[in-house]
């Protein structure tokens, strides 16, 4: 029986939940990859496959009334925060009963009732928002926490850097998760941040910053647990940089010629978060292979149904065009 860091805290139920979250994201994304190629899915689609351990590891610590702000690569965050998977798929298909009535699409999936402040088409759009949620929690005296997800590329956006300082100055219950997947579109992090640890930037603002392996659910879980606990207890903001990889292109349709041959294959074989998770929990005797297999099947069915319903659902009619610009008219 191997020790699994962080796993002590987690009961079996939670381990299975975490696995289900990651598997759901993976299945959702891989299926979108296939369906996008048919031409039926409109717009830009950015897949989160490969990065599931981050969403699952962070969200395992968040309650329903905690908030997150996401990115253009937001499906994983949304699923992990509890957004309805079928509603999401319908949204991605642009349908009237999608999570946002087809008005948002992949890049704007949101569900405020679930504390999901939205995927975001603007790189660096989210960090300011979570400062506001943190302020709200502080002023209203709740113990809510807000987490923003930002890419390596997004860590160079002024809004992100400003927000770290604001959160520090206002001493907010906020966590900045940096998903460093090595690229911003085609541009390598070796160039755009000189390959330096983005976590180091936290020092300059006087907040704790750590680097973790974003393929490792338990590593993320542990670091996020500490940061979120600190935030909840009034200890202020933190930054967690997760080093990770994306399995697909920047968006669907990206030929990815900027990557090394076999770059992704190697990672899939050595560092896949689902594989690592399964190895650890089964070899530690915490979960049986069969239990995970069952989840795989359930998830597959859920995604099958989601795609079917996504395709079959009605388009929004003209009456949707002018509504919901304002509350009052």
């Amino acid at each position, binding site marked *: 029986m191997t020790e699994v860091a962080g796993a002590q805290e987690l009961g079996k139920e939670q381990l299975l939940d975490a696995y289900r979250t990651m598997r759901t994201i993976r299945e959702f994304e891989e299926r979108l990859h296939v369906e996008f190629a048919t031409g039926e899915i409109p717009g830009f689609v950015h897949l989160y496959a490969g990065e599931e351990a981050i969403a699952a590891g962070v969200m395992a610590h968040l309650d329903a009334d905690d908030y997150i702000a996401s990115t253009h690569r937001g499906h994983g965050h949304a699923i992990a925060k509890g957004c309805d998977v079928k509603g999401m798929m319908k949204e991605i298909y642009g349908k009237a009963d999608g999570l946002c009535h087809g008005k948002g699409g992949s890049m704007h999936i949101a569900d405020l009732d679930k504390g999901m402040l*939205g995927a975001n088409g603007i790189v660096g*759009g989210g960090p300011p928002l979570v400062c506001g949620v*943190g302020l709200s929690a502080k002023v209203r005296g709740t113990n809510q926490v807000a987490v923003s997800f930002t890419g390596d590329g997004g860590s160079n956006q002024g*809004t992100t850097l400003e927000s770290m300082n*604001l959160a520090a100055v206002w001493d907010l219950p906020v966590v900045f998760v940096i998903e460093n997947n090595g690229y911003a579109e085609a541009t390598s992090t070796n160039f755009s941040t000189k390959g330096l640890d983005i976590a180091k930037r936290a020092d300059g603002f006087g907040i704790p910053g750590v680097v973790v392996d974003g393929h490792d659910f338990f590593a993320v879980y542990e670091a996020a647990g500490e940061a979120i606990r600190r935030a909840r207890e009034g200890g202020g903001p933190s930054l967690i940089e997760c080093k990770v990889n994306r399995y697909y292109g920047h968006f669907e349709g990206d030929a990815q010629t900027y990557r090394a041959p076999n770059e992704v294959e190697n990672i899939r074989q050595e560092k896949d978060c689902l594989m690592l998770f399964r190895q650890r929990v089964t070899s530690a005797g915490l979960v049986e292979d069969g239990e995970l297999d069952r989840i795989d099947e359930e998830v597959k069915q859920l995604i099958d149904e989601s795609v079917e319903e996504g395709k079959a659902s009605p388009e929004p009619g003209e009456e949707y065009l002018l509504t919901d610009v304002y509350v009052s008219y």
Partner: protein
Amino acid sequence: MARRITYMQAINEALRQEMERDESVVVFGEDNVGGTGAPGEDDAWGGVMGVTKGLYPHFPDRVIDTPISESAFIGAAAGAACSGLRPVAELMFVDFFGVCMDQIYNQAAKFRYMFGGKAVTPMVIRTMYGAGIRAAAQHSQSLYPIFTHIPGLKVVVPSNPYDAKGLMIASIRDDDPVIFFENKVLYTMEGEVPEEPYEIPLGEAEYVREGDDVTIVAIGRMVSMAEQAAEALSGEGIECEIVDPRTTSPLDEETIFESVENTGRLVVVDEANPRCSLATDIAARVAENCFDDLKAAPKMVTAPHTPPPFSPTLEDLYVPDPERVAAAVREVTGAGARA
């Protein structure tokens, strides 16, 4: 209601009364307290012009200074508004919108539509606009046309103390993001303002003056320019009707159209630069909708297509003044009548 206070005091009173009424109202911005972290007096500034002065001692947890990080704190207003507060954030001068516009227009203003009606984002951005204090090109602009262009935002431009108070209270209570333009020259303008809280609905224009010869639509500080012009013109036998839209988005087209139907003539006075301005917006809408009522070409009086100049002599030439308004009125009433 004989009490007279200034435009600035009216805004301050609105903020105080709303903060008293509703614990979810918070006020923040650069130096909105003034002196945070410093050894001297707290509440030393109350904003660069003193508009929020005196709030901090009453609501020490809800009046908050910020670093100079407009994107972060204006965005924080949006995030706070989505999660239980009604923030009133200050963008000190609207000229600074260029460092934080994304959070205003792509985030706060679009949440509701993008999210299929799920978001409610009750926030107010207070901001100063306009020329007249020799603050030069980056502190004197009247950028409300840019914000009026943006769906999802409401844009308020009060022209007097009474409206300033009522519109501020309505803006805070409104469930949509509102940008509230305060004219820096009007801060010292006095007027009768009731002590009790009251709302002026967003989207309702006001007849500032009635008259049958020409409709002058004037925005913000330009209302008083129009009034001075109208006074002078009355002596020449020209009776101007002045409409103050009070909010540029939503715009009360009906009132403007109604007035033009009566007068048949339109002059729009807008302190902003001319291209894609409120002046063009109103003139075009009137031309499209009241064409058959128009007896003369609509006329626009605006700043020129230049940045605001520093020199007092140039700045005084830059801002539309009563003489230019009067000249435009004489032109539309004198020439080219076709009725």
